[in-house]
């Protein structure tokens, strides 16, 4: 066995050249492109990680903003609810006050109406009583409508308080004697004679006619009036009835 040294040398050169050729045209370019792809992939991964981090931060911010909005909305709702409750209570109080006021006004109006109706009824009753009394007295003799009341007038004078009686005594020169009709002279003399016993001499009476008295006499001084007439009696009865009605109400 002998080695062909030329072949050995040429093949050595060939293999060395082939190593360089494949290194230059195959292995280096492929390794470089793989490294470039790995670098690009790393860059993309870094970008994706950065994007994911940013997205996570934005998501966190959105969550916080949403929570803040929810809290704000909750606070707003609570404030509105409180305001609504306050307004409702205020309105209810106002309505209640208005109702109470209107009810009081209605009750006052009703009481006033009732009182007015009662007064009207009393007046009508008084008028009716006066009419009835007038019709009844019309059947009596005219002298009875005056002279029958003279004794009552004298008793009224005697029952006066001393100060009031003294006031009439002081006014004895200017006393007015009212009667439901014009008094005849004899009737006037009888009245003067009866009153002179109670008030003394120097008595001067000025007769006046007042049909509203129906029957009876009234003596009027400057500050005292002594009544003994149907009108005064009916007025007194009417006051009594009114007082009883008020007491019953």
């Amino acid at each position, binding site marked *: 066995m002998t080695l*062909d040294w030329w072949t050995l040398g040429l093949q050595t050169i060939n293999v060395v050249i*082939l190593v360089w050729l494949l290194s230059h*045209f195959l292995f280096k370019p492929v390794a470089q492109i793989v490294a470039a792809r790995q670098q690009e992939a790393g860059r993309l991964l870094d970008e994706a990680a950065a994007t994911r981090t940013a997205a996570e931060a934005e998501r966190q911010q959105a969550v916080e903003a949403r929570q803040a909005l929810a809290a704000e909305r909750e606070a707003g709702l609570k404030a509105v609810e409180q305001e609504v409750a306050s307004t409702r209570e205020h309105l209810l109080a106002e309505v209640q006050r208005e109702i109470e006021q209107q009810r009081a006004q209605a009750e006052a109006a009703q009481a006033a109406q009732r009182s007015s109706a009662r007064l009207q009824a009393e007046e009508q009753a008084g008028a009716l009583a006066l009419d009835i009394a007038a019709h009844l007295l019309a059947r009596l003799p005219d002298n009875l409508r005056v002279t029958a009341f003279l004794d009552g007038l004298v008793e009224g004078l005697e029952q006066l308080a001393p100060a009031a009686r003294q006031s009439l005594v002081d006014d004895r020169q200017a006393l007015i004697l009212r009667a439901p009709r014009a008094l005849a002279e004899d009737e006037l003399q009888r009245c003067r004679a009866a009153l002179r016993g109670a008030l003394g001499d120097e008595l001067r009476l000025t007769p006046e006619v007042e049909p509203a008295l129906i029957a009876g006499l009234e003596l009027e001084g400057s500050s005292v009036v002594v009544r003994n007439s149907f009108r005064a009696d009916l007025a007194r009865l009417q006051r009594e009835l009114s007082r009883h009605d008020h007491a019953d109400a």
Partner: protein
Amino acid sequence: MMSSPLVSETLFRLGPLPISKAVAVTWLLMLALAGGSWLLTRRLGLRPSKGQVLLELLVATLDEQIRATMQVAPGRYRALFGTLFLFILAANWSGLVPGLEPPTANLETDAVLALIVLVASIGFGIASQGLRGYLRTFAEPSWVMIPLNIVEQLTRTFSLVVRLFGNIMSGVFVLGIALSLAGLLVPIPFMALDLLTGAIQAYIFSVLAMVFVGAAVEGPASPPSASKE
């Protein structure tokens, strides 16, 4: 091919240089490999084509094999071992082309490949450990082992030559005998077997080269570690 496999036949002469068949076929293979690489790597992009995917798969597999065998970053060794594997594979399979003889069935070609591995292991060993450090590995575990370690260097280089030469040359012989005896269809199983044998021998030669260079780079006592590329 029924002539002696130990004799290198001269195909033609370039001046004083005798060009053997093995050299001529090697040139053809160099042309095919370099040209094919140039064509395939002209338009590499970040979005790979199918051809680029295959190339990247080849390089990635080679890197992974270097990393697993030598426990180092593959960058410095990729070109050497990748070229050894591709050239031996292409050379082994070139015997199936009518009229061509595999250069690896030639003793000088295999000797060149083994010598390159020997020189590479010495060179990478010195580059990695320094001259003294590399020479000190011959005295491991004791100076008594220096002759044996030197013999080991030579014998394992010789074993690379003999293994590749024997397997490929025998395949060529078997295929030649089958062709001369049985005609057209009978050699097909032997040709398929040659394909398998050629691939296996290319892989074995490359892996053994990685082991030898890796042992020289790491040293016998140092633990395996992965360095950065």
